């Protein structure tokens, strides 16, 4: 029984551990070296899915700290990734409050909204308050591939949820 409870805790912490690991490690989800235009913002997919499905597994404070770590590793001004992640949480929570049943299509569409708001804030702040230049073409590719890959990760996370965590979703 005790062993099961420890295992459950580990499974439940899986998404949060993955988020922290993605933010702090060298591991990235950009395949620029092999396929030049492929870049993906995996963190926002991860946050959006779990905030929508199981917000109890993704505490706001942890996401905020993961954002700060991401800023340090990537060299962005502190707090900018946290802000962008918090916008994702906000949209996710709002959608969760407003909807009863969600499908992959509705989640995909609302994810697009969340990503637009989040990236708009992120790049507006970066453009106006830092010296970092960025290519709009790369932002476009990044958003496109993040959106494109969302259903794939949605299915994978759903499988993880059903297999290891159990469906206690509303």
């Amino acid at each position, binding site marked *: 029984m005790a062993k099961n409870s420890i295992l459950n805790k580990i499974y439940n912490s899986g998404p949060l551990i993955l988020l922290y690991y993605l933010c702090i490690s060298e591991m990235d989800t950009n395949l620029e070296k092999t396929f030049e235009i492929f870049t993906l913002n995996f963190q926002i997919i991860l946050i959006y899915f779990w905030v929508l499905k199981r917000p109890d597994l993704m505490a*706001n404070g942890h996401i905020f700290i993961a954002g700060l770590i991401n800023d340090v*590793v*990537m*060299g962005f001004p*502190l707090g*900018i990734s946290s802000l962008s992640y918090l916008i994702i949480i906000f949209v996710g929570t709002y959608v969760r409050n407003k909807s009863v049943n969600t499908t992959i299509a509705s989640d995909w569409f609302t994810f697009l909204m969340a990503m637009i708001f989040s990236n708009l804030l992120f790049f507006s702040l970066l453009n106006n308050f830092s010296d970092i230049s960025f290519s709009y073409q790369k932002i476009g590719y990044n958003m496109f591939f993040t959106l494109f890959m969302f259903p794939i990760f949605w299915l994978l996370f759903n499988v993880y949820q059903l297999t290891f965590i159990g469906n206690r979703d509303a």
Partner: protein
Amino acid sequence: MSVSRDDFSIAFRSALLKRGGAQKFSVLSLIFLALIIFFLDVYGVKFTKPVRAFINDVVYRVTFLASTPTRFVPQLGKDFTSYINVRKENENLKIELEKYKLLELNVEFLADENKNLQKILETEYFNKNLSNILLAKVLVDKNSPFLKSIIINKGTRAGVLKGMPITKDNYLVGRVVETNYLSSRILLLNDLNSRIPVTLDQGAQAILSGSGSNKPILEYLPEDYEILENINVFASGKDGIFASGTPVGKTNDKGEVELFVDPNQLSFVTVNLNTIKKEDF
């Protein structure tokens, strides 16, 4: 109508202010906190600089440790392959060693001749003080679509200052853009924010601008200048930071510059401590 407006405002307020259960903080309070941290960092209030430097040092070390498994697995594959090929490699190396022994004499003669000629020209000999060349290990090389930078394990404690040029095997790699006590961030030549003055084989001057891809481009070339393939590009040294004549890369048929050092394959780099004595930007 009013019911749907009420629904909207309830859901909106709940999303911003809701706490309880796993959520110890509301989204709104964290947004305010993130904004405060952001503006403190951007406007560089006096106490934030050392705090940020300390956080950077700690996080970079943790990142290095956390990335060990991701670095270990590909390395294991490489090690296994090289173990299998070790005999053949040994034979090849012996042949190469003999070749280099013969070349060494020539190199010594040419180096002396070069030194003498530089003395005649009264120019600074680039490698005259090797104690000012600092070897640094790459701690973090996170591939980002927006920023092309690496973190090295030498900081202000070792004398690294902002703006110092970074080389690998005497080829230019980038420059220092952020210094902490134990680590520094290097902006690579292919980053969108990188601009350095260069000179081409035929004497033309230009600015090498990072394009975000692996191949930077040449800007501000003389009018009607046609870029040919396989032209060597060197740092011109006009900015007073990069030593003039440091090789950078070669032009290709598209007019881009193929760097001599692959920015994705850096594990050790050298910092040239000679160039800058004081951080003034």
